[in-house]
């Protein structure tokens, strides 16, 4: 009986142990998994963007709409344009390329005189096919340069980085082949809809449609608007008349054939203006239209929802200077500022910290003073960085009058990382065996010689690891820097010049709502730098250990 009991107890203990070990192992694996998840997520989010988009225009784009081209200066990074943007360019909605292509140029829209033939076509493209020259001239924005002919407009585009012109395709393509300008395709197909179908009834209206829903709608597979969240109203698809530019665009976009299947298409093609009128007047009608025409007739359009994705972190982002608070451009100057900051901090904190550690370990009489110093450094290491920031602001920026700049920031960082450096260096120095010191002294070396030639080299891997970890802390610091180093994203020109570090840039991009995507790509760069520092520390230590053992 007793034996059995003992046996059972033993088994229970073993089982308990297994459970405990299992739990410990699970938790430790979990930490690694969490680390991988964090780094992986931020890196993925930083490398690729994938954002929901919503807008009136459909995906199909035309290179030469109505025989025209949008010619822009080759410096512009614009690859394609949506009609509302094009419209905005010529009506003073945009004055800068920042929101158009992410570049910090002034926008110079040019157009041939609306009363000239070239200009007439351009103004019809912008303001609808039934626009007359006078009203077109009055609708153009005040910033738009109206030039006598297309050739003059093209010349402006060739010479001014921010210029754009709507000119006949033949002229533009010739200039594009010569590399003088660049032409971009236009997306201008919209779904024009009858007011009643689009109306908000009982707090319900037609929802945003994805491409599949749009196709279904145009193929006549949707009987009532209520299926799309709208009112109880039958859907009437009105197809474009054959032979019109709209019909060929619709066919090219893949909507043409399907539409015929279920659409109540007017058999004899009415003029485009009549068709638009039909959409307006038929309850529940919907049909493809060019945005300009729909807009000119005051028709409502349905909203397409899509998803746009691409590379977020590009080489360009790394090497370009930032502009407009980081909204445009890259982060090259911020990377440079960060490394300058690190170098200066290391120069300030490294020698002082290591020297202090040498003093504490090798020279100071191990008494109350050393204990007090040790307690002080340990406490200092635990103080929140924001406190260092406040202190740095008051002391370095204000009292000493260094102002917001590299020097104030680096001095604050120095105070912050000094305790870490002192503690790690102390431990490294203490770990050097006494026998090495005795061996050196017994050879007749002085204490200083012993420290400099034997103790410090032997402790170097540990000291360097401490330095690199401290730098790692500095590179990730934000709070202490915002109050002291300033946030100028231009390249720092001197010790007193305000500068922004990568981590501060991430914070500002995010907190000021400048760009979520850019915050993530900057964070990815930051992570890579921190990981590189860690890897360098490991490599250095293993090299040195390999050399001494």
């Amino acid at each position: 009986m007793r034996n059995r009991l003992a046996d059972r107890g033993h088994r229970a203990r073993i089982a308990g142990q297994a459970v405990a070990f299992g739990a410990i192992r699970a938790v430790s694996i979990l930490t690694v998994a969490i680390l991988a998840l964090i780094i992986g997520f931020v890196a993925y989010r930083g490398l690729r963007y994938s954002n929901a988009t919503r807008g009136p225009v459909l995906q199909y784009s035309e290179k030469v709409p109505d025989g025209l081209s949008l010619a822009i200066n080759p410096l512009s990074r614009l690859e394609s344009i949506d009609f509302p943007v094009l419209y905005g360019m010529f009506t003073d909605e945009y004055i800068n390329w920042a929101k158009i292509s992410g570049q910090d140029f002034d926008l110079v829209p040019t157009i041939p005189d609306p009363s000239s033939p070239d200009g007439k076509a351009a103004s019809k493209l912008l303001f609808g096919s039934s626009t007359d020259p006078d009203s077109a001239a009055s609708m153009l924005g005040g910033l738009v340069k109206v030039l006598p002919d297309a050739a003059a407009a093209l010349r402006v585009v060739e010479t001014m980085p921010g210029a754009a012109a709507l000119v006949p395709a033949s002229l533009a393509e010739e200039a594009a082949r010569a590399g003088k300008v660049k032409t971009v395709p236009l997306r201008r197909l919209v779904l024009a809809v009858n007011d009643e179908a689009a109306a908000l009834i009982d707090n319900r209206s037609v929802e945003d449609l994805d491409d599949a829903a749009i196709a279904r709608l145009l193929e006549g597979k949707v009987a009532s608007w209520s299926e799309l969240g709208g009112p109880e109203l039958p859907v009437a698809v009105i197809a474009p008349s054959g032979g019109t530019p709209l019909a060929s665009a619709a066919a090219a976009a893949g909507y043409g054939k399907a539409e015929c299947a279920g659409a109540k298409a007017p058999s004899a093609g009415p003029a485009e203006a009549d068709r638009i009128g039909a959409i307006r007047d038929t309850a529940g009608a919907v049909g493809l239209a060019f945005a300009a025409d729909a807009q000119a007739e005051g028709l409502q359009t349905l909203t397409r929802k899509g998803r746009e994705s691409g590379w977020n972190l590009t080489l360009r982002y790394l090497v370009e200077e930032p502009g407009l608070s980081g909204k445009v451009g890259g982060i090259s100057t911020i990377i440079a500022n960060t490394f300058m900051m690190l170098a200066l901090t290391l120069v300030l904190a490294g020698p002082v910290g290591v020297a202090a550690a040498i003093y504490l370990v090798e020279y100071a009489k191990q008494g109350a003073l050393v204990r007090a110093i040790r307690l002080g450094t340990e406490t200092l290491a635990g103080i929140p960085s924001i406190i260092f920031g406040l202190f740095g602001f008051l002391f370095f920026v204000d009292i000493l009058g260094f102002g917001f700049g590299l020097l104030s920031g680096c001095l604050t960082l120095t105070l912050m990382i000094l305790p870490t450096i002192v503690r790690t260096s102390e431990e490294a120095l203490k770990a050097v065996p006494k026998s090495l010191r005795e061996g050196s002294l017994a050879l007749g070396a002085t204490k200083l010689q012993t420290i400099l030639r034997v103790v410090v080299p032997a402790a170097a891997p540990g000291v360097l690891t401490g330095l690199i970890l401290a730098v790692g802390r500095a590179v990730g610091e934000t709070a202490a820097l915002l109050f002291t180093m300033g946030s100028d994203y231009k390249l720092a020109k001197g010790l007193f010049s305000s500068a922004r570090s990568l981590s501060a840039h991430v914070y500002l991009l995010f907190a000021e709502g400048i760009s979520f995507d850019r915050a993530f790509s900057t964070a990815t760069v930051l992570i890579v730098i921190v990981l590189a520092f860690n890897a360098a520390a490991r490599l250095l230590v293993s090299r040195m250990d390999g050399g001494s053992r």
Partner: protein
Amino acid sequence: MSKETAMPSPAKYVVRDLDLWYGPTQALKKVTMDIAPNAVTALIGPSGCGKSTFLRVLDRMNDLIDSVRIEGKVLYDGVDIFGDIDVIDLRKRVGMVFQKPNPFPMSVYDNIAYGPRVHGLQDRRKLDEIVERSLVGAALFDEVKDRLRKPAMGLSGGQQQRLCIARVLAVEPDVLLMDEPTSALDPISTSRIEALLEELKKRYTIIIVTHNMQQAGRISDGTGFFLHGELVEFAPTREIFTNPRDKRTESYISGRFG
């Protein structure tokens, strides 16, 4: 080795009434002995008897410990080592080899050249010469001549200890203090070092602390027996081992304690 050469006057070290305290604990009591030049003097005794402490007095290594207090007289070549002398100079002339090999974490070459370098020698050719001579002197040259630039930590324990001896020889001392230099080594390395000592005593005065009675018997000319901080008996080795005058020596040697 005859009795006359074992204890000739003038002695290398003259020790008179040496007392040493670690704080309140007395570690050496009225030690008096003369140490002969160009001979191997062995210090034996049970652990904690003060023999290592005594050895460390001879090149003032106890200076490193704050709580140590010393009274009495130690003359080295007639000069009081507690008087107005340069400790660096003393340590240069009195080399010390420790119980555990303690090569510096640098190359074999730099280990040997360390002493001459800290004493100001920069000339490469001379350093090369010294390194080779020291390694030959420590019977290590043939084993390491192809790896002078390799880290010393890569050598075996016995090689490391001979490296430490070579390192001491490089500063051209005239006394070698050895604190149980073979206690951390295997028998083969031990016998090599013992053979080396036989060779070295022609040129150096050697004082060796050992726990190994056979070793003391094999290699030393004179032997001192320490017990509880006292030098119980100091006599030519053969006498100590065959005809000890003190009962306590006899008990220790015959293995009754220690």
